[in-house]
């Protein structure tokens, strides 16, 4: 493996690892605050138990997310120093904002986790709300940085140098809106689908557990709207990509030739003009094909496969959300059949996998560029040699952490199912 490939691979697995923990850190606080508010409103102690259980999970995921995020902030320089040298003055602004959002999140999470008896009840809920909001805000700012890498704005290139920089313009990159929405919804989807699956599994073992029924209901209250909104946001994302990164779109759809009335291929089916219509709201619009760029610059095949995985799983989740919503509206209660529970369990990993696949689409799809059209990844990578060593070290550390967190999660869940009626 070449040095650049080691750098890319290390960055890739570091992000793939962190994104899971960051997502849970964004979505879980929302769930735990909802449970706590329900406890305060109804006085039902089971909601309190739920809030505390979810807070415990949040504590573990947030901590691992915080330290793996620290690794990333250094890895930007450790692996791609030239990128940071060029981009630092432009993306330093969103990173600074993210720093403060993260600070707020850490402070108020400390108060939430350890302040149950130290602050007033509604103050405690307020602290939880601040955690949920600042977590989402952190994601907004970090995602803006990625949006800028894909559609860089706020500067001019003169003799190979970045000049006339304007950090506010950089933050207003045309990719900001769709990347922010798509990422945030993905975080809520991934977390609540996985969490819901855990509670569905517990329900399958003990159908009458009101604890897990309530947990699943709260979780679904988030899953349903975000899963239904995600395809719409995805469509808008596609239209932005069509304008700003036509070669990524061509790679996603496997379009070789530039053509008007470009067809959309779904399995054996080919609908003429549909791709043109989806991309530009006009069936006669010209969509650019991969022939426009040299073969070595074309996106890797994994971009297209990942895109298909993401869209497939996203569609399944949306269908599941729609069905569940329909049943809930008609019968005024959640479905509870064995098949539905099994489906909920089966869809547990779908959100996480779709999110990772979407990440591959964005990032591998941006190659060979680090800053799209401005700085090539090969030129951004560090001159440091023997990168296999840090690659191996972090791979080992993350592998161990992943296994351990999995074990912790299993034990935490088992604590809620084994003795069916314990106190908490």
């Amino acid at each position, binding site marked *: 493996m070449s040095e650049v490939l080691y750098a890319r691979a290390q960055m890739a697995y570091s992000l793939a690892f962190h994104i899971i923990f960051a997502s849970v850190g964004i979505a879980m606080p929302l769930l735990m605050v909802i449970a706590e508010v329900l406890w305060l409103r109804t006085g039902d102690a089971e909601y309190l138990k739920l809030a505390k259980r979810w807070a*415990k999970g949040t*504590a*573990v995921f*947030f*901590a*691992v997310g*915080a*330290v793996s995020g*620290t*690794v990333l*902030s*250094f890895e*930007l*320089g*450790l692996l791609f*120093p030239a990128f*940071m*040298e*060029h981009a*630092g*003055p*432009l993306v*330093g*602004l969103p*990173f*600074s904002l*993210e*720093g*403060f959002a*993260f*600070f*707020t999140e*850490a*402070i*108020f*999470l*400390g*108060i939430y*986790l*350890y*302040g149950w008896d*130290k*602050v007033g009840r509604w103050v405690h809920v307020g602290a939880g709300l601040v955690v949920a909001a600042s977590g989402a805000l952190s994601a907004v700012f970090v995602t803006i940085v990625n949006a800028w890498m894909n559609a860089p704005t706020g500067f001019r290139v003169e003799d190979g140098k970045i000049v006339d*920089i*304007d*950090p*506010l313009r950089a933050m207003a990159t045309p990719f900001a809106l769709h990347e922010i929405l798509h990422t945030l919804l993905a975080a809520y989807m991934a977390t609540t689908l996985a969490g819901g699956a855990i509670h569905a599994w517990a329900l399958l073992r003990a159908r009458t557990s009101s604890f897990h029924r309530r947990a699943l209901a709260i979780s679904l209250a988030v899953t349903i709207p975000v899963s239904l909104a995600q395809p719409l946001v995805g469509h808008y994302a596609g239209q932005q990509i069509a304008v700003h990164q036509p070669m990524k779109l061509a790679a996603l759809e496997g379009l070789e030739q530039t053509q008007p009335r470009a067809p959309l291929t779904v399995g054996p089916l080919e609908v003429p003009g549909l791709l043109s219509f989806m991309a530009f709201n006009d069936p006669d619009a010209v969509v650019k094909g991969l022939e426009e760029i040299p073969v070595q610059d074309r996106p890797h095949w994994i971009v297209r496969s990942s895109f298909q995985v993401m869209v497939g799983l996203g569609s399944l989740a949306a269908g599941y959300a729609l069905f569940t919503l329909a049943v809930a509206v008609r019968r005024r209660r959640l479905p509870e059949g064995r098949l539905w529970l099994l489906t909920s369990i089966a869809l547990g990993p779908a959100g996480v996998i779709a999110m990772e696949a979407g990440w591959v689409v964005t990032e591998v799809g941006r190659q060979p560029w680090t800053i799209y059209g401005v700085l090539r990844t090969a030129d951004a990578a*560090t001159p*440091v*040699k*023997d990168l296999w*060593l*840090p690659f191996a*070290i*972090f791979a080992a*550390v993350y592998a161990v*952490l992943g296994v*351990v967190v999995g074990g*912790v999660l299993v034990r*935490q869940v088992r604590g809620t199912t084994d003795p069916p009626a314990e106190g908490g």
Partner: protein
Amino acid sequence: MLPELFAGVILAALVLYALLGGADFGGGVWDLLARGPRAADQRRVIERAIAPVWEANHVWLILAVVMLFTAFPPAFSAIAIDLHVPLVLMLVGIVLRGSAFVFRQYGDGGRASTERWGRVFAIASTVTPVVIGVTVGAITTGARRASGVPPSTLDLSWLGGFELLVGLFTLALFAFLAAAYLTVEAQTPELRDDFRARAIGASLSAGALAGAAALAAGPATTRFADRLTGSWWSLPLAGLTTAVALGALALLFTRRFGLARVVAGSQVVLVLLGWGAAQYPVLVAPDLTIASAAAPAATLEVVWPVLIAGSVLLFPSLYWMLRVFKAGQR
């Protein structure tokens, strides 16, 4: 002027990281060294002191890094290239320390698992400050950078005698801070005396290591050593730092722990200010200065208001957190 302000912000973030995050690492050191009939109680005090605040304390480091790559991008990339290996080691330490701490607390894994993660937490807490100090030492000398050899992760030229001494000094300083703070957090007179003895021991070690590092600085980096010893402020600052260090010792001896905590913190502030003053105007030796590495004014001008607005939110929240968890003890 603006670049100087940003350099000041980075130094301030590092000072706060040492005062708050440093003490959390120091707590882990005393977890590792917990001995005697009260070892379990010592560990409990340490855990309770760290648990609610360590994640917030840790963010100061992230803030320092973000400010560095925002305001001085070439300095960040130079450090990231030349000190790749110590930074990787530091990050591994940070990851293991934090993860092990929560696994110990929330792992629900029974005694064996709790003990195992406690051990990982303690060892990582002890090794990481050394690596942080070594990194600071290497930034100060710039030996790796000046060598001009293409860096490899297998080469060890970032590790010299001076760097190692700064590393050990950092460890002693963090351990001292933690022990001084823990004298206030401990709830029984016996435990308070345990941490009092540890604070005194760490303070004396830190003093000896500071002396050794100062002696080693001369051969390792003439520029830094000359500014440290030959500036108009050298004598007053050295005198003040020594007086404060002795004051902290005296307060510990006479068991005035509340005041000792404050004076111990001031001692660490003075040490870092001295380092910053001797380093000025260099960011990364030998060639990257505040002026030569500064980002364009357009960047500094928009980020500056963010820092002010952020601080207006941050400091009251931090104050509240510390009041909730650190007041009412003693």
